[in-house]
């Protein structure tokens, strides 16, 4: 039990560190306004095990978002987006439930439930994350075009990176 917790905390530290120390500094869209934000730490929340109570997941999502916010100097934006994403997590489980149900000791990962299942699950929730992130960041619907453009571009780039990382993990664990 202790081992699982240590592994989980280490994974969160890895993802947050990668996010705030490396990916934060990357500006893909040249010298002008930045449209592509690479945010990959939400996948650490997405792959939390099934049996963990929703109460703790919401608490963890808030803490993780808060720490990232401290580095991005944007109180509440990342934390709010993380909360919206994990709120819809149980709903996605119900919609995507396979015929023979879930096993108790599973996690929603590629190695446990297959790549197609994970693609549907992760891409939907990441889209929710990015949309709520940019709505909270811009905080006005005057720039709705800008919000949508940023959401779509950031979503595609980040999702591709997340999938590559997850595939790498699943190959390693097999």
């Amino acid at each position, binding site marked *: 039990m202790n081992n699982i917790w240590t592994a989980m905390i280490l994974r969160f530290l890895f993802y947050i560190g990668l996010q705030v120390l490396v990916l934060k500094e990357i500006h893909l869209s040249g010298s002008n306004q930045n449209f592509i934000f690479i945010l990959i730490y939400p996948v650490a929340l997405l792959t939390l095990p099934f049996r963990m109570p929703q109460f703790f997941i*919401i608490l963890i999502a*808030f803490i993780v*978002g808060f720490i990232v916010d*401290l*580095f991005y*100097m944007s*109180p*509440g934006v990342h934390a709010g987006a993380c909360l919206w994403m994990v709120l819809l997590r149980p709903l996605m489980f119900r919609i995507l439930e396979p015929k023979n149900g879930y096993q108790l000791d599973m996690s929603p990962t590629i190695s446990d439930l297959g790549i197609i299942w994970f693609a549907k699950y992760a891409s939907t929730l990441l889209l929710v994350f990015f949309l709520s992130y940019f709505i909270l960041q811009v905080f006005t619907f005057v720039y709705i075009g800008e919000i949508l453009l940023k959401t779509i571009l950031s979503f595609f780039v980040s999702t591709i990176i997340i999938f590559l990382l997850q595939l790498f993990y699943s190959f390693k664990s097999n």
Partner: protein
Amino acid sequence: MWRILNIIVQNGSTVLFVLLQALCLFWVVKFNQTQQKIYLHSYQLMVSGIQAKYQKTIDYFGLRQRYDSIANENAKLLSNQINSPYKIQKPDSLIDGDLGAYQLIQARVINNSLEKRNNMITLDKGGKHQIAPGMGVITSKGIVGIVTDTSSSYALVMSLLHSNTNISARLKRCGFFGPLVWNGKDPSIMNLMAIQNYADVRLGDSVVTSGYSVIFPKDLLIGIVDVYKKEEGSFTYKINVKLSQSMTNLDQVYVVLNKDKGEKEGLEKKSAHYE
């Protein structure tokens, strides 16, 4: 007791979500309001310690470029020094009395953002290096922002790329002045407002600081006129200014300490008696 906790854990997730989401919204709104409100958020300076250490470790990769920029700056200073005897011989140099009023404190940028509507910068020097709120921040190429808050060894700077930025700027050739603001789109362009449309504006004109405020010294280069057009239905130009110091690659900056600040502000306060 354990059972009550259990019930909360099982059913309270929605309540917890609503509470935490409300807290997030509260923060977002509070942070987006005004510059004074940002003052309260100086707790972010706490993480500056980690960022400073990180910056120190990756410094080695950029040593070459920094060496070049410092060498260039040295060369310019040296040329000033060589030229100074000739300048002093000009009669009007005696009028320029504020030569010694400004002192520069060297600092480095350890955190910077571009993509938000209100951008802030963190510097690695603070109160114990004599930096205080209200001081201007410049580089050798242009101006950067205004210090809003300091801790003992870090300072928070309101970047030019902030919705509250309002800097008194002047067109160097024709002398007209007006406020310089940022419209939130392109980090290399700012707008100079309130220039009357009978002013003789030309493309490529230098835009400099006016020296009317105590924050920046007079005649520091800010940028050049990039695009200008008459605004429909008003008597002013719409002028886009291309910043001479790109905000995307800030590293070495100087904080301007004005020794006469208190005196000038004290005198100007008295003007209220005569208005």
